[in-house]
């Protein structure tokens, strides 16, 4: 059984459908209760799996983790946690609204750390388990835009790198996907000539990689050299770039 946090739209929704089609029972977490109800009903009817909804705003405390734990006990324990959760804000531009920064940091980083911290000891006792988080190419270099979001995603990548190190020799596999522009509502209205990644293709890749020590995966894969080039762009040139 897998837990997907941020399941009701975009990448999370594609992952839920893909995992259900492979016969996995699911616990789905999302703040959109109505979408979540629709989704769990759909997965149960379509694929005959069990899908348990947990409606919660993960930036608003940890009580939802107890509900996951209770449901997981009933469903035979957790085989993996996936965190396609995240949000950007139009005002995340160094105007430094403290509440906005706190919210972005909680949602994109802190909530995931707290969930992993809560369930990692249990996962270590499973014969095989996987932890999957999703970062963003936006975090490759700090820019004028998506300031707190990028910082949170870079912190998340560092946290998962540490987790991977901690998990060496254990039954837990730790994976981190760095996502480029995806064809989801998060990139809605974004006018770019750069091809957007398909969540369905990504979900197939994640399922295929379960249990494999793939480390950091860029999706779409062309972002790996692009990210490397950005990382090594000298400051005199980078400061002239507007993106």
């Amino acid at each position, binding site marked *: 059984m897998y837990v997907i946090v941020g399941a009701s739209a975009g990448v999370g929704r594609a992952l839920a459908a893909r995992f259900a089609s492979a016969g996995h029972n699911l616990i789905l977490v999302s703040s959109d209760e109505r979408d979540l109800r629709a989704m769990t009903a*759909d997965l149960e009817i379509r694929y005959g799996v069990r899908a348990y909804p947990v409606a919660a705003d993960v930036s608003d405390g940890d009580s939802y983790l107890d509900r996951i734990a209770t449901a997981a006990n009933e469903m035979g324990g957790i085989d993996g946690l996936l965190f396609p959760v995240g949000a950007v804000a139009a005002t995340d531009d160094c105007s430094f609204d403290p509440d906005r920064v706190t919210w972005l940091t909680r949602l994109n980083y802190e909530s995931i750390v707290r969930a992993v911290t809560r369930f990692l000891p249990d996962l270590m006792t499973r014969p095989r388990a996987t932890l999957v988080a999703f970062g963003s190419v936006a975090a490759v270099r700090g820019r004028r835009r998506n300031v707190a979001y990028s910082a949170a995603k870079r912190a998340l990548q560092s946290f998962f790198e540490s987790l991977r190190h901690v998990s060496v020799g254990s039954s837990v596999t730790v994976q981190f996907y760095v996502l480029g522009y995806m064809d*989801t*509502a998060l990139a*809605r209205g974004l006018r770019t000539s750069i091809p957007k990644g398909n969540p369905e293709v990504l979900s197939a890749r994640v399922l295929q990689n379960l249990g494999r020590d793939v480390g950091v995966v860029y999706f779409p894969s062309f972002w790996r050299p692009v990210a490397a080039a950005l990382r090594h762009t000298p400051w005199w040139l980078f400061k002239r770039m507007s993106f």
Partner: protein
Amino acid sequence: MYERPDRYRLIQADLSRRSRIARGGGYSYAAASFGAGSVVQDLGRFNRLLRFDPTARIIEVEAAVTLADLLTVTSRAGLCLPVQPGYPAITIGGCIAANVHGKNPSREGTFVGSLVDLTLFHPDHGVIRVTRENPPGLFDLTCGGYGLTGVILAATLRLEPLAGDRVSIRRVRVGDPLEAIALARDLAGDSLFAYTWHDAAPRGRSFGRGFAYHGLLKSGPVDPNTVVPPYRVLTPAARARLPFSLWQSLTIRAFTSAFWHAEASRPEVTETTLFDAIFPFARRSVYFRLFGRPGLAEYQALVPHGGTETFLRKLRQLILSTRAPSVMLSLKAFKGAPRLLRFDGDGTCVTLDLQRSAATLDLLRRIDDLTIAVGGIPNIIKDSRLPKPVVQACYPEYERFRQELRAFDAQRIFKSELSERLEL
């Protein structure tokens, strides 16, 4: 402006008082899902199954669930939708908005007969559960209301047993459409489908020769894994990829003649899959692609039994005199009750496909007059140029529809090219 919401709160987001219209699969021949100045809300992500009770033969689905999707899931329980319009990627929301019909409307009626209730969103009324009784009148206004009462979010549908997934088709050769009128009615009976096909190329001698097709579902096991075979979904871009139409007068004659001879040389009784029987163009989308960028024009009229012969005689004269590039003509028996702007009633459904051209538009104007003269009704969802005066003259409840729509939505928030053209 084009939106593709993937959560309920995005559909219900505040667009202030901007006009808007919902879009399903985008397969209607008229511009019902877009219009100048209207925000298009593409409901493609609302394609989830919400409740399935095989014992009660009921399924509740979101609006963008497609016919193919529904057939795959319901066939596992030996059930299917009674009314299946002709393309598998059509959505349930679209079926409701246009109150579509299937292959044998004289037996199964139109889509409204399969609809138990629906969930509708309107910015002024919120999310409403609409049953046949409550709120009074809204069910009838929405089913066949062309998406003008709000966004159809979900619907509960009645299913019927599915006896098998193979269909036996009997073909009867007919000399012309007049000869086929009674046949189309007689063959309908309890069959899965009954319709005729006629060569409508504008030539005197063999105009209208064709076949009547009569399909019966064969009892047997249903394989849910193959009931919907792979097919390439026809998209607007793919359909119009050819910059010109291959349906020109010479090619129309050649293709229709070749088709007639191919059909004539086949055994009288053949067998096919349920999918190919109910969605005949799904795996033969080349028919639509050949119309190229100029596009297909379709005219469909429901003609009262008493006026069918006159209608067909005069239609033949019009086609031969205008030499408009007509490709095929089809007849189907219809049984139902007309209401508001629904394409429903007793009579013969006459369908004419043409290549879009100036001569075609001239012919269609003349057919409008003919339809009015025989007391028929044109199908609003099939004709992108149908003018308001024709609809007003043919549909006795046109004014009532307008008034009831305004009583429900005084601001008239939901607008499309179709609604503006017909001044709804």
